[in-house]
């Protein structure tokens, strides 16, 4: 060993032991959540896989190694169709929530002058969250129904002579109710993004002669994309998996995928098929997360 190497050696050892300490610290933080997710997610998912490969005979589960249930999800009516319909309803909800949420988020981020008012409006956005989802959905029934407030109002004003039945028990009322329920999520997500826009950016644009519309179109809208995407992913996912709105305000054909799964478990007692649907959706969910991460990264602006 040369003199230099001998001089460096203690430092090397201390780096090595520092690494060992770091690794121990990492495990200290990482092990509890990892154990949790293993027990309450990975093991249950593995059991779904096990169940999905078997079949049910005379109300009894027979283990197996067959992909039949997955084939059924994609070929037998109505499973794939219902998944696609749920995704369509989710997508409409996501788009509508973003459109409805944007003006409020915009107002909150740019036009509220005092902190006190900002706090108040922020509070007004999150309070509807606390009113029970079920009761809110039911309230829409009271508003949209044939003896409901909207119809009575329209008749009083003389716009229509008979109650309009198109408002309730169809896909429109399902999408409307879901949009209503999940809009606060979109508001918060878009607002968080808009809040990051530096005031100096707007002032600079104005000094360069841009009018309000141009500032919005060329600066604010591109910057808001990640917030819109994040909000849309949440609202899409929540709407996709919903089973309450179809039951309360939906019509006979507005069954969504969660309703189908509940029926498979309770009525048809076909756990293997329900498990297969679950795994297909878990795969789609992982794809969605990857896609959203990529999309948010791509569209994020650094200040």
């Amino acid at each position, binding site marked *: 060993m040369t003199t230099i190497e001998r001089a460096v050696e203690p430092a090397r050892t201390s780096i090595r032991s520092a690494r060992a300490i770091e690794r121990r610290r990492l495990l200290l933080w990482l092990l509890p959540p990892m154990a949790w997710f293993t027990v309450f997610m990975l093991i249950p998912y593995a059991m779904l896989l096990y169940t999905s490969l078997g079949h049910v005979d005379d109300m009894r589960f027979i283990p197996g190694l067959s992909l039949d249930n997955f084939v059924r999800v994609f070929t037998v009516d109505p499973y794939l169709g219902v998944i696609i319909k749920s995704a369509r309803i989710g997508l409409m909800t996501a788009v509508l929530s973003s459109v*409805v949420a944007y003006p409020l988020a915009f107002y909150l981020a740019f036009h509220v002058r005092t902190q006190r008012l900002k706090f108040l409006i922020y509070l007004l956005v999150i309070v509807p969250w606390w009113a029970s989802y079920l009761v*809110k959905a039911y309230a829409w029934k009271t508003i949209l129904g044939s*003896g409901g407030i909207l119809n009575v109002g329209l008749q009083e004003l003389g716009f229509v002579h008979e109650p309009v039945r198109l408002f309730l028990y169809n896909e429109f009322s399902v999408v409307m109710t879901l949009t209503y329920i999940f809009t606060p999520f979109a508001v918060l997500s878009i607002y968080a993004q808009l809040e990051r826009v530096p005031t100096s950016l707007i002032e600079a644009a104005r000094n360069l002669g841009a009018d309000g519309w141009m500032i919005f179109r060329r600066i604010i809208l591109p910057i808001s994309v990640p917030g819109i995407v994040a909000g849309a992913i949440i609202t899409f996912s929540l709407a996709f998996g919903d089973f309450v709105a179809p039951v309360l305000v939906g019509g006979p054909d507005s069954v969504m995928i969660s309703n189908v799964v509940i029926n498979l478990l309770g009525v048809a007692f076909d756990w293997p098929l329900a498990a297969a649907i679950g795994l297909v959706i878990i795969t789609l969910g992982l794809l969605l997360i990857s896609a959203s991460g990529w999309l948010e990264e791509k569209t994020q602006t650094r200040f």
Partner: protein
Amino acid sequence: MRAFGNRTLVTALAMSVLAFLYAPILVMMVFSFNDSQYTGLPFNGFTLRWYGELFSDNQMLMSIWNSIFVGIGVVAISVLFGLPAAIALDRYEFPGKGLFRRIVMLPIVLPGIITGVALLSFYLTIHLRLSLYTIMLGQGTALMCITITEVFARLQQLGKSQAEAAANLGANDWEIFRQVTLPGIRSALFGAMLIAFSISFDEIAVTFLLTGRENTLPMTLWSLLRREVTPEVNAVATLVVFLSIILIVAGMYSSRGHANEREA
């Protein structure tokens, strides 16, 4: 000047969105005082009867307590396991980090029913009897990512310099956590706890399959709404809204107090 665009137009649009958000809540509140068996027009007159029935309805009161109990458990789980996960994700690089992040996020994009099915088949296999605790474990798993993402975002904002400075000054791990990390993330953690509690309190999808004999409030309301609807459901929801406003305002003021202390 931060404001741009037509102020009147923007304000009018924002106010109509707020009106949309509050229309059904107003309906719910008004009909909770309506002297009629049915939720709907006409308005027959003011009564407190439904609140009276609510307070003598033991099943309903019990389910409110159950929901609070489950909510507290869910918050405890998501802090105990979510906070370490956020710290690990912020501080360290480790193999499988990308996968870990995706798995953690998965329950928020999955339909609650799917999380429920997976957990139910797990519970049945290990012969775990369904109870409030099984609901708690399910919701805790589903809602943990809220704490993880909120705290992680705050940790990334804070950066590492303060913790490193504390380490150079001789602070040990526990001291760094207690006196540097925790004060830095306090308001984010508090916000995440509030969100987790409020979602848990109103959670239906995960809870639906994992409920045993004791019901949470949404489950009780669900069974009521599917059979005969009495304005009692409006009364209960109105009551919860008012209690929550008090809770949120108190919470926000106290967490703002902390934020001011830090800035000072």
